[in-house]
Every structure is written in structure tokens, then in C-alpha cells.
């Protein structure tokens, strides 16, 4: 890791930080999409919110620069992914390699949606972290291979490799094949 850069955040006397121009609009417009990406990465809403808040808080002090570069979302997603990868490396967030994965039920069942989500998260839990990050960035956040590579700090070739392996694993995950071919009502 390179040297750390210290960015001061000056707070006025009342303790509330000064809101950068345009930040509120961005949060309003993009927070749901970011939270959904966070959910795919972490598997639960509280952690997803934690992740998105962490990324947005890190973007806050340099917001004006990011806007000038027309890259706020790219930057926020980059922070999200790298923060999450570091969480995974530093702490184990509870992904349990269970012998029994949730079975998908007959559909029309009121629990079908919950089951589908749990099957998805269980399958994502089984992916290595970088493969999961590629899946989220490339196939959910609609990032190009080059953008995904830039966010993750790796080559386009590495992104292709992660994507290919992830796709193969997900195809074999219990219940995912049916979900991918639309077998479960959304």
C-alpha cells in the first residue's frame, strides 16, 4: 500500500460537515442502485448500507474534484469494491460454506422471492471475492470490462478471466440455472 493521504474535513462549530454542491442530488439519484450493488456484494442490507455510506463519506471531501472529472460514481463504486475486498480480507463476514443450500420452492409461494434472493446470495457467497466483485460491477452495475478493471486495479484480461470462472460457477450453483433462465417469478 502506498503512503496514506490525509484529507481534512473541516466541520463548523455546530459539528455538521459542509455539504458539497451536487452531493445531495447524487445521493438521491444513485443511492438505491449503489445499495443494490452493495447488497450483492455483502449479502445483507445493513452491510450494504455500511458499505455505501463508507464510500460516500470517503468521496465527500474530494467531491468537487470528482465532479470536475465527471467521475463521482466511478469513484464511489471503486471505493465500494475495494473497501469490500478489504473487509473480506481482513474479516470474515460470515459466509458459511453450508452443505445445504436453500432449495427453491414451487412458485407462487409467497416465499419464492425470498428464496430466490437467498439462493442468489448463497451462490455469490461461494465465489472468490474478486470474481464476485466482477460479477457485480460487470453484470449488475453495467460497467465495461475496462471500467471494471480500473475499479479493481487489475487488467482487462484478469476481468475476463474472473468473469468466465464466475459464470461457470454460478451456472453450477443450486437453483441459479433456473433463475438465470427465468424459472422463478420475480
Amino acid at each position: 500500500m502506498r503512503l496514506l493521504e490525509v484529507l481534512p474535513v473541516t466541520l463548523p462549530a455546530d459539528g455538521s460537515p459542509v455539504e458539497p454542491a451536487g452531493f445531495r442530488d447524487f445521493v438521491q439519484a444513485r443511492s438505491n442502485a449503489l445499495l443494490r450493488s452493495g447488497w450483492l456484494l455483502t449479502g445483507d442490507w445493513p452491510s450494504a448500507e455500511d458499505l455505501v455510506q463508507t464510500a460516500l463519506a470517503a468521496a465527500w471531501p474530494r467531491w468537487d474534484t470528482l465532479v470536475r472529472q465527471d467521475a463521482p460514481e466511478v469513484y464511489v463504486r471503486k471505493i465500494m469494491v475495494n473497501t469490500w475486498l478489504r473487509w473480506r480480507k481482513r474479516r470474515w463476514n460470515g459466509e458459511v460454506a453450508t452443505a445445504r443450500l436453500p432449495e427453491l420452492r414451487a412458485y407462487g409461494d409467497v416465499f419464492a422471492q425470498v428464496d430466490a434472493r437467498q439462493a442468489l446470495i448463497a451462490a455469490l457467497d461461494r465465489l472468490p471475492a474478486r470474481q464476485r466483485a466482477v460479477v457485480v460491477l460487470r453484470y449488475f452495475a453495467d460497467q465495461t470490462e475496462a471500467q471494471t478493471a480500473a475499479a479493481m486495479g487489475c487488467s482487462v484480461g484478469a476481468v475476463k478471466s474472473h468473469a468466465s470462472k464466475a459464470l461457470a460457477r454460478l451456472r453450477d450453483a443450486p437453483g441459479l440455472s433456473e433463475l438465470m433462465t427465468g424459472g422463478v417469478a420475480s
Partner: protein
Amino acid sequence: MNTEGLTRQERQLAEMLHRVTPEPPRGLSTEDVAARVASQAGPRQAGSHQRHARLSPANRGWTRKWAPVLAAASVFVVISVSAGAVVGLTSHHSPAPVRGSRPTSTGPASSPASSPSPGQTSVGPSFAPKTVAGGIWGTELINHQKPPFTQDTLAGGADSLYTLAPGYLDRIKPATGQVVARVPFEAAGTEPPVVAGGTVWVVSSYTDTDVVLEGFSSQTLASAGSVRVPVTGQLAGTPSGVITSGPDGHLYVAAGSAVAVVDPGHGVIKTIPVSAGPVSSVAVSPDGAKLYVSTGSFELLTYDVATGANTGSSSAQGIGSFIGNLVATAGGVWGTVGVGMSEWTWFAPNANLDQLIRASQAVGAGADSVPTYSGGVVWLAGSTTLECVNPDTGQKLASVAIPTDSGVLEHFGRVTVTGGGVYAYYSDAKANLAGLAALTDTPAACSG
């Protein structure tokens, strides 16, 4: 969704991700982020994040949305240039809480075993009771300090309530909601305190090698010692209820693939191995004879406390994951499945998951739906209904719908009876309000 340039399988994956990934239960506001920016010098940043990082990220993260806006003059955000991510924070303000340090209790700090004097000085502000949730069952918010205590951490003692707020263990006077004793304390995760005898036990460390419990006087919160429990095998990835107490005053601690029986005065006196794998939750039957444990693969096992022998097991498939928060009654075992918005409560008569009964709707807004056995009944809370049920049969005794605040869920958690009153964690994300609620008009049927 842009599927240009994707293969058919990639397109199917992308479509499935967009279709199955749910909408968040609530949006994120600029105020949430501002609070995070301001609070990054707060007490939770005392270096404990890494040390205790393995416990329940879900609830820890959810708690952070309530982080306070601190009146610090300057906060320094340290950003990793290579990763572009926050990796550490520091401040010249808000000194770090110290585990086991002397409490700011009104009791004399030099005599931790002493009882508080009548009329002791409160360490927290008083709040005028505020009617919330449409006043269902006479609900009044009696403590809404900032930051509020962490959901899932409300516990009752003989005449007190105990909560973990970020950086603190608090003792709350039920009649007024005032914090009457407080000690700086960094909990590992969001396990609720366990009151055994005159001591409040909380998990201070949960690592690969050991689980450490810190004890505090139930009156003054003065330090009353600590217990270290070595971990056997691998820790549960989703711990939810890893410490409980039995009627004999012993503590039962899930520590990997074993449950340690702890005599607070003598340390670990017995270890019960659990071959099925890491234990995510423990409960002891009211008569103290049976120990129930859950594992991550959705198994519920029964052990004879006296002999340590495994006397029963059952499992359930296809209903979800992350079994936990066990509560034992004479009629069986209660628990939860799932996390966050998919969490719901079940009842297994005779501790047999083959007979599992779904007891509550899935809770929303990332909140919990942890059952509690208090005052002679089991309480089921969440965001849909507030109920008391027969602890042995699961029969509903009384129920009330929980309203929303302009469409945003309101939430009740960990209903606890103490001193004749009924209390619960309450939150309203719309109003950015959370704290301790008194249920002043519960139905007679809930009196146990």
C-alpha cells in the same frame, strides 16, 4: 440495463441479477452520509473495528446510520491512495473508550460492589415521554438519546435495563428511561448483555482464538472481572446469540465447535463439543437440564447439560439460512432464520425442526425480529405485528399491527419485561428516531 456485447449466458446472468436483486428497504439520505463523515471521530473508531470485526456485521452496520453528528472541530479522514478507500480515522477529540475502565456511574467508582444510593444522580438526560407508533399498546418513547442504543442489545435485570450504545454499556432506569450508570465499553458485535446474579456480562472479544466476556456490576457497572473462553475449531460466521445464562447462574458460551459452561467465579468448568460444526446460537431450557445449539447448516441440537451427551437433533432445509437467536421454553425452542429484511421467527415444538412453525412475518428495513421470553410469554416483534404468544405452544395471545410512518416501517425489537413494565427497542427510520419504548398498555393476556 446495458447488455450490449454480452454473450447469451452473460445476458441471462445480468437480467437475473437485475430481476432478483431487491430494492433497498429504505433509501440513503445525505444526512446519513453527513452523520458518517462527522462521526468518524466517534467512539466506535477506537480501534475495535478490526479487533472485533467478525461479529454480526449486519447489525453493526445498521446501527451506524444513527451515528451522532459530533461537534468536533476537525476530523481527519485517512484515505488509501492506492485503494481509494477509507482505511482509518483519527481525531484529536473524543478519547477512545477503554474496556473495563471505571464507570461513570453514580456509584463510587472505587467500590465497585457497592449499591447505588437512592436518588443517585443520573448520567443521562431525561426525556419527556413521546407517544409513537400510533400509541399501540400505549407505546411511549422514554429514551431517545443520540446515538441510540444498538438494536438487539436490550436486556432486562431485576430492576434495570441494560443496553449497548456505540462505545458504551448503559444501565437504564425503566421508570424514567434515564441512563443511571454508564461505562465506556467497546462490545464485540451486537450480542445483548446477559445478566447473571449481580453481574452483567457482555462479549468484549470474539476472535479466532478466544471469546472474552467482561463482567460489570449490575448496579454500578464497575468492572467485575473477565472470562476468557478458548475457541474450538472455527467460529460461527453468523453468530447470533452466542452467550446465555442458565437458572444455575452459569454462562453458556458458543466458542466455535463447542459450548463452554462458565461458572463466573471459577471460569470454564465444562466444555461440550458440538461435532456438527460452529455454533451460531445457544439457549438453555428453563429447568436448566437441556442445552440447545444451532449451527450454520440449520441444525438444532439438544444436549444434556449434566452429562454433555447429545440427546437430539433435527434440521430443516429450504427455508433459508442463518439460523440463530435461540430462545428455549418448556415447550420447545424459538429462533430466527435469515438476516435483515428476510428475517423471520420460528417455533420448533420439542426442539424438533420437523415440526417447525413459522411464527412471524419477515421483518423489514434491515431490522431484526428476535424473539424474547420475558414476563412469562414469548414476544414477537418486528415491523408488521407486535405479539405475545404462549411460550410452550406458540398460540397467539394478543397481537397488534405496527403502523408505518408515512409508508416507512416502524420497528419494535427485543421486548423485555422488568419491574412490572414492558419495554422494547423502537425505531422509526422516517423520523430518524430510535430508542427505548415503554409499552404502557399491553393486553392482560400478555401478563403470562
